[in-house]
């Protein structure tokens, strides 16, 4: 376990004891990334703000929901934000309008306009690793993964959009996830 993961665990432990300073530090560490993914999925400022705000409040009100035995805090929290963002998109039935714009999704492996903004080095390093790993995926695998994760689309919808069998969507998705896991574990 790295130093940053240990710090996350310590901060989370203190949040569980109602330590507001620790909460603010976790906020500082993750809010920009959380807001980034919420914006990417929802495409709407106000909804993204609501998603991120609710995710941090959920962390404060039920910190026990994070179980260190099941993985790292960063993964837990950013997944929580992503889940809430996808839920928000679907709940408000904006998916159809978003999918019409799916072809214009910015490439996840592209340049980061906020790269020069000060942020914790460990997130910046990991971001480069994740983007590099995405770049190694065959285009067809990356496409279904991005449509699911960033577009919030179901596999049925992806199959429909791309005109391919749903079995192919499933196969490509799993292959992409497996390859990412192997690549990122090697980092």
């Amino acid at each position, binding site marked *: 376990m790295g130093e940053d993961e240990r710090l996350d665990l310590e901060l989370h432990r203190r949040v569980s004891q109602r330590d507001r300073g620790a909460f603010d530090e976790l906020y500082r560490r993750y809010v920009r990334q959380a807001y980034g993914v919420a914006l990417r999925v929802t495409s709407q400022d106000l909804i993204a703000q609501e998603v991120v705000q609710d995710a941090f409040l*959920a962390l404060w009100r039920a910190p026990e929901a994070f179980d260190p035995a099941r993985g790292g805090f960063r993964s837990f929290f950013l997944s929580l934000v992503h889940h809430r963002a996808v839920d928000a998109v679907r709940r408000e039935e904006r998916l159809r309008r978003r999918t019409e714009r799916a072809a214009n999704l910015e490439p996840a492996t592209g340049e980061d306009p906020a790269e020069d903004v000060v942020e914790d080095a460990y997130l910046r390093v990991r971001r480069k690793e994740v983007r590099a790993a995405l770049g190694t995926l065959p285009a067809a695998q990356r496409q279904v993964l991005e449509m699911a994760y960033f577009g919030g689309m179901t596999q049925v919808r992806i199959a429909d959009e791309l005109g391919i069998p749903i079995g192919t969507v499933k196969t490509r*998705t799993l292959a992409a996830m497996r390859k990412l896991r192997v690549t990122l574990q090697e980092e």
Partner: protein
Amino acid sequence: MSEDHERIEELLAGYVLLSLEGEDAAEADRLLSEHVPGCDRCRRTLADLQAVSGDLALATAPADPPETMLPRIHKAMDEVPLQGRRGRRGALVAVAASAVALVAMGGLALVLGNRLSDAQTRAGTALEILSAMQSSGSQPNNVAPMGATPPQSGMVEVSAPEVRTIYVAAKDCPEPAPGHAYQLWLGSDGEWVPVGPMFWPEDGVVLLEVPGVDVSKYDAIWITEEVEGVPPTEPSTQWHSWAGQLA
């Protein structure tokens, strides 16, 4: 039961990406409750896939939230101990619509210790929920799935101070593992107390009514999966759970 692990892993990949629907979602729920907990390979695979899902968030460019966000969060945190935070109107309308959709659907079952399922009781409970929602001061609250709990299984809590009754409704609720049941908890400032008997969904539907509860004393709700027959002293976090705030 012998399972095809390639197929299972395809479902788990779709599950962690929230991209399953219909029969695939139901099959994933079944696997997560019946197969995965006892299969080392699947537990590892699920953990690996969830780690990748968490990492994928890093592929997006970080963005600066408005400077007002942290003060807003602090304010909401401060409001919790007394009356709780009143939700934003848009969110409330969405939740209210969900609750109405739930009570309007067929096949509702009252789950309150004993399984009461006659049509008259179901209709009566649905009317009580509608009545509670229409009373002044009532607030429908979203009780969101946590961790690996199926994302489509969100619950709705409805309560009104004057009726001193709390209602919880859900559809697409996964069955707890064999020998397990669900427990409702109410919390105040981080302290949780179990409320009412353990319960189970019926055909994925939960319609829970717990009378005699002064909801104004609490600021948060948590529903957790627990071992049946063993009175829990604190909420378990390793299985299905849903959490939300009380407005």
